[in-house]
């Protein structure tokens, strides 16, 4: 047999939740040694399919066969035993356990007594194979997201899986970490593993995939070899509408300098950072994760106050020691970590929208004027097009895109002069991404100065008036829009040549 059969075949699988048909008669097959990308907007049914494949839900109908044998996992552990594992956007590691234990826990640690020596050796061997230099004895708590993902990939290798599902593994990674991840994925592919890859970043699809499948509204729309797919065709299939209005930002008139940052530094993190931010400007910040972009933002926002240099806003020198002071001065920061730093997800939509501006709605006794609060929240909801059953709905029940818009609206309500956006479109679907882009453009046009930190290079280039590039805690250069090409920015960011 020159053409090997599929590793896994999914046939007419359906799943329904209450009134929602999450999946209707979806079929998909993965070949050994194939990197198969699955794309679709949030709610297209991708995550439901993954959960069925990894045993978190049973399918309502349809069947799966794994190497010709019927496959119906009862739990994720069961799925793993049978050869299917998944890696998620937020890796789930055991922070207190060592890297080696994280790799082997639950499967290869059979036997009563743990053999530490062999375990460390095995772990080192697998990590070396992946070209990762982490001491397997270190507690996983100290690892970056990329490091944690590497540990999960190492785990998948040690499990000897035949199908590896990667659900938006690149969402929290910088370009160079993505690069390394791709190398790891390709080495998995070489050893015959079928990889099901999910991402919202289109350019990654073309870099890594062999075939691309599109889902929309719980249906399978198409599966094609990557050569037959264009970005336009993909977007059209995903959203069912014309992609012409993406990246809609036009040229801007230049305003006067609003924020002047001079020789700013936090010892050991970044140093000597100098730039101006003009009224109505979008200043992009490119660079690797860990290059100091977020740290500058945290410093401007008063989370980690700078220990050298000055910050001037509208000609006044600021000494910001806390987010509270930053907000009072007109600087707002949309965090890259929506769940941990951005939203109080158990609270209602309205409570989140007014969280940073509560004092505006309180009388002298500290009582909240709930009518005014709801009225303002309603305005914000409509302005950003946040889709939610009601203002009282807990934010945890909104989709990622709507959560992101909620966070944006919350900061907007503080009427900032300077708005720092840290990865504002991470992990949200194409439609919501376009909404956010359009909105950033509107904000800039209205005179707000915007600092846009993003690891999504095409996004930075398309949205920014100028692009600042960070490397290892230093500001390497600021490129005007015309000169900012992907090659030039990447070269500056990694210090190549």
């Amino acid at each position, binding site marked *: 047999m020159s053409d090997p059969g599929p590793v896994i075949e999914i046939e007419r699988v359906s799943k329904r939740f209450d009134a929602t048909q999450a999946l209707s008669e979806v079929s998909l097959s993965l070949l050994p040694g194939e990197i198969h990308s699955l794309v679709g907007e949030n709610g297209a049914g991708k995550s439901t399919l993954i959960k069925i494949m990894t045993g978190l839900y049973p399918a309502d109908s349809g069947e799966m066969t794994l190497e010709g044998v019927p496959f119906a996992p009862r739990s994720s552990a069961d799925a793993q035993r049978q050869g299917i594992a998944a890696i998620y956007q937020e890796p789930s590691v055991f922070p207190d356990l060592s890297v080696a234990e994280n790799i082997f826990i639950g499967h290869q640690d059979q036997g009563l007594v743990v053999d530490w020596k062999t375990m460390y050796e095995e772990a080192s061997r697998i990590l070396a194979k992946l070209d990762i*230099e982490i001491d397997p004895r270190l507690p996983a*708590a*100290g690892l970056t997201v990329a490091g944690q993902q590497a540990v999960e990939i190492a785990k998948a290798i040690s499990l000897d899986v035949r199908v590896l599902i990667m659900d938006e593994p690149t969402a929290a990674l910088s370009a160079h970490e993505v690069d390394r991840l791709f190398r790891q994925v390709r080495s998995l592919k070489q050893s015959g593993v079928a990889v099901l890859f999910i991402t919202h970043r289109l350019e990654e699809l073309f870099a890594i995939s062999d075939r691309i499948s599109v889902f929309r509204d719980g249906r399978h729309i198409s599966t094609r070899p990557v050569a037959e797919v264009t970005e336009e065709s993909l977007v059209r299939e995903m959203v069912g509408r014309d992609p012409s209005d993406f990246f809609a930002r036009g040229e801007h008139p230049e305003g006067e300098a609003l924020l002047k940052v001079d020789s700013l530094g936090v010892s050991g993190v970044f140093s000597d950072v100098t730039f101006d931010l003009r009224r109505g400007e979008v200043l992009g910040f490119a660079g690797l994760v860990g290059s100091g972009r977020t740290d500058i933002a945290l410093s401007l926002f008063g989370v980690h106050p700078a220990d050298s240099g000055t910050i001037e806003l509208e000609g006044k020198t600021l000494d910001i020691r806390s987010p509270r002071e930053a907000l009072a001065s007109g600087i707002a920061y949309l965090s890259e970590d929506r769940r941990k730093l951005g939203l109080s997800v158990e609270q209602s939509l309205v409570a989140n929208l007014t969280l940073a501006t509560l004092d505006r709605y309180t009388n002298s006794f500290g009582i909240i004027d709930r009518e005014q609060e709801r009225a303002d929240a309603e305005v914000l909801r409509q302005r950003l097009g946040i889709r939610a059953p009601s203002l009282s709905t807990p934010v945890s029940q909104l989709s990622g895109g709507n959560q992101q818009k909620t966070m944006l609206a919350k900061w907007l309500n503080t009427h900032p002069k300077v708005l720092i956006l840290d990865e504002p479109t991470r992990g949200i679907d194409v439609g919501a991404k376009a909404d956010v882009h359009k909105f950033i453009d509107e904000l800039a046009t209205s005179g707000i100065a915007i600092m846009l930190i993003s690891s999504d290079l095409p996004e930075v280039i398309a949205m920014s008036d100028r692009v600042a590039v960070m490397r290892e805690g230093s500001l390497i250069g600021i490129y005007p829009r015309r000169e900012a090409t992907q090659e030039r920015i990447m070269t500056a960011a990694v210090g190549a040549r």
Partner: protein
Amino acid sequence: MTESAAVATTRSTRFLRPERVKEATLLAIIAVSVVVFAFLIDGYLSGRFFNRVTTSVVVVTLLAAGQALVIFSRNIDLSVGSIVGVAAYLTGDFLTATGQGPIPAILVATVVGAVLGSVNGLLVAYGGVPAIIVTLGTLALFRTLLSIYSGGANVLAGDLPTWVLEFNNVTLFTIAGFEVRLVFLIAVVVVAGLQFALARLRWGRRIYAIGSNPSAAAQAGLPTASLVFWSFVGSGALAGLAGFMFLARAGTISATAGAGLELESVAAAVVGGVSILGGSGTMVGAFLGAVFIDTLKLSLVRVPEVSEFWRDAFLGILILAAVILDTLLRNRFNRRWSAEARKAMEATGPTAAGMAHVAGGGGTADA
């Protein structure tokens, strides 16, 4: 490939495990306080004092060990004080009625404790009720059952077989006035056994895994419910054993025996560096925590300047100081580890070829 593996392991042999740091800190704190007390109290560093501490620390040691076991899996057991009471009382009753020897007595106490612990375990692991709610409930419930059972009568020291009250003084061997007593040896063996189990056995590592990240543990297919269940059974059994020790020390047992020990056991574990959030800490640490608290208590009594009424006030302050010190040290180390890990990741820089690929991929998309 083997070469780079070797590189990876030798690269940081200087790496100190966090547990060891905590234990060493606490040991140092204990040593310092002993030295300080030696200056304050005449004849402090005697065999008699050593004997007194090693005997009295037994109950709290066993309880702290059980408490730590449960806390490692991100739970808590507030019912141990009541379990001690029930086990001590029932064992006392059993001995009064039958006049049996130590082995059946210990067996009865441990089994009683294990059974009560299994009630907690069932409710937490299989009933899905948070441990703090379950054990606050059983704290009251076990005590109530004991009170009903006892009907207000006490177990009287005079009715017990004579070996019971001498049990505490059984000495295995003596080195220069320092007696190694059986009860202390039992406690040490229990702690050492658990330490080994937690560090070396698959079972123990999984307990830590659950406490470190419960949802990941379930996802990895660990039998989380049964592990949590058995950790409560273990805590109960240890509390039962402690109940026997309590009986041997007190002789007379009322229905309120052991009340308040639950918080003392939590204090010992926490002072011993067991993270209240689960996933980290050691048995040796919990043991040292118990020793620290007990040494303080017994020493403060003997400082002439400190009236008996000052004891607890001091104890509170010293416990707090120990915990603050521990936190400050740990924060320092944590910072160093993450810096190290970050450096290791950064060190593996990007390759130019891979770079070009990503950029090229983007280029294709633009076309």
